[in-house]
């Protein structure tokens, strides 16, 4: 098992170096001069320009800049935001809990609805229940989520007035972040109504972000279940006279879940891409919105650092999924 883990980790190194080169190169290719951006509309003298270039290290050969960047990276230094003048890593850690909270809620929703729906569809194969579940799943899978978010805002915020339009909590509440998760922090603050407010802000973005993973998980669970339900051991369990719930829940689902775990893991990339749109629509202060804003503001260091960190997270989650897959499925461990 340890060898398997080390081998997988070793495989990540060239990919990560590649990711760092891509992130580094991209930023050098972006149009616009970062020093001129920094100077603003008034402009600066040639001497000051050269001074700043030297200060930021932009006057050195590109390969030296890259190695320097890599060296900083290994020491946890991802550069400083040109706009806020704060270290990129600090900004990331301030905003990441918001995205993590949203993503965790979304994936929980997707798994706890998607898996049972997939199982029901498989068990009732060919019936109207199956057809309506799979039809809905295909609609969810084809959904432009930025539009879906706007529709939900129109209905629940505009017409019904049930949920707020944007942000993580009402401006009425203020408390210092402890965990960074608004649901937990609002509970810890002890302020009346804070948790309710945080929850009502979280509902719509979670639904929007969960839509595509939910559809994918339901479809995958159905096809995995169908495959397993045709196996001999399921027939044996049935013919032994075991109750259907036990056959489906214990014998079939446990084996069907193996490929589903991989699917759930692969959704992390979908969630990150979805977070870009969801956070933009709901003005959710997470890393998706941070990346979009930084691209528009041409905040080189943030785009570069953000790309690297997000790719790093995705690679790490995929590794964990692979290891988990090995744990639950001993057949592929070696």
């Amino acid at each position, binding site marked *: 098992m340890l060898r398997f883990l080390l081998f997988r980790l070793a495989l990540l190194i060239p990919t990560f170096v*590649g990711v760092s080169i891509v992130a580094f190169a991209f930023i050098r290719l972006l149009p616009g001069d970062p020093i001129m951006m920094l100077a603003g509309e008034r402009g600066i003298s040639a001497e000051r320009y050269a001074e700043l270039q030297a200060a930021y290290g932009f006057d050195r050969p590109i390969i030296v800049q890259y190695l320097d960047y890599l060296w900083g990276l290994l020491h946890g230094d991802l550069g400083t935001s040109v706009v806020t003048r704060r270290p990129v890593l600090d900004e990331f850690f301030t905003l990441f809990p918001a995205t993590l909270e949203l993503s965790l809620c979304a994936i929980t929703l997707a798994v706890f609805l998607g898996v049972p729906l997939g199982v029901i569809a498989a068990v009732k194969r060919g019936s109207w229940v199956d057809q309506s579940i799979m039809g809905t799943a295909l609609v969810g899978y*084809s959904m432009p989520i*930025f539009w879906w978010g706007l529709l939900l805002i129109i209905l629940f915020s505009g017409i019904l007035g049930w949920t707020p339009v944007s942000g993580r909590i009402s401006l009425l509440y203020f408390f210092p972040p402890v965990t960074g998760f608004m649901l937990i922090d609002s509970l810890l603050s002890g302020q009346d109504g804070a948790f309710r407010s945080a929850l009502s802000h979280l509902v719509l973005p979670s639904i929007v972000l969960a839509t595509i993973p939910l559809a994918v998980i339901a479809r995958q669970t159905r096809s995995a279940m169908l495959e397993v339900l045709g196996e001999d051991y399921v027939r044996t369990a049935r013919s032994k006279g075991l109750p259907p719930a036990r056959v489906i829940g214990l014998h079939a689902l446990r084996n069907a879940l193996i490929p589903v775990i991989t699917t759930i893991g692969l959704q992390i990339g*979908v969630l990150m891409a979805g977070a870009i749109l969801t956070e933009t629509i709901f003005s959710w202060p997470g890393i998706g919105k941070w990346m979009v804003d930084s691209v528009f503001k041409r905040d080189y260091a943030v*785009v570069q650092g953000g790309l690297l960190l997000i790719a790093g997270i995705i690679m790490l989650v995929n590794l964990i999924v692979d290891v988990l897959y090995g744990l639950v499925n001993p057949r592929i461990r070696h």
Partner: protein
Amino acid sequence: MAQTNPKQADAAIGLEGGPAVAATRRAMLAEFWHYFRQNRGAVIGLFIFTTIVIIAILAPVLAPHSPSMQNRGALLVPPVWEAGGTWQYVLGTDAIGRDILSRLLYGARFSLFIGLVVVTLSVTVGVTIGVFAGYFRGVIDVAVMRLMDVILAFPSLLLALVLVAILGPGLMNAMIAIALVLQPHFVRLTRAAVMSEKGRDYVTAARVAGAGRFRLMFKTILPNCTAPLIVQATLSFSTAILDAAALGFLGMGAQPPTPEWGTMLAEAREFILRAWWVVTFPGLAILITVLAINLVGDGLRDALDPKLKRS
């Protein structure tokens, strides 16, 4: 050793020309249609998609107004069935008095164009790279696959967003960025298919008969790897439309006043609580188009997957 003409060699093993091959092709097509037709959803999807194609072609004839004509006397007019709506603007007008129906009809052209260009680009590049990697293996293969891993490590929309920021916002650049992000899937699929086909007897037979490397790669092996590629191309078509609309929505795709559906949504955002129709219809158009293509994709997968075929 006597050299054999590749044409003769192919004819000898039944790879080219001849009425027998044409008949086989027809039979395969008939078999495919037989299985495709069994999936009701796929047939409905195909019907809707064909309708959208016809709408896109006939947009100038069908559209009641010019997509860019502004009418200052008819700002945010609701659809005909709402109070205050008129038959002049069936689906209402936007904030600067442009007819939404006409813009949607013209928008179909952009969406299909995006899908077509992106799929063509990513299939051409991805399949070529995949065939080379799968056929030659070795250093080329390792280098190519690591590069694809790097591209796949980023969320596709984020990578496309940054790429468009580099290339400059606009529809063409958005299409290039999306094609680049989608092509690793074709590389991987083609490579895997080529690797499994390469050792088959018919490939050896063609090689022994004197077929050259390029002929083996692109004429002997590739046609036998097309089934998964067709399915992936269909799914990429819908992904391309969705991603281009998302980029348009973020302000990085087609630029106003282009009647692209995602860009229309971006322009409509500030009116969502005042005029539901400016937001609802463009998104519905995206959803219907993508849904139709995905239905066809599911049908294609079922019809082309030999494992699912009942003998």
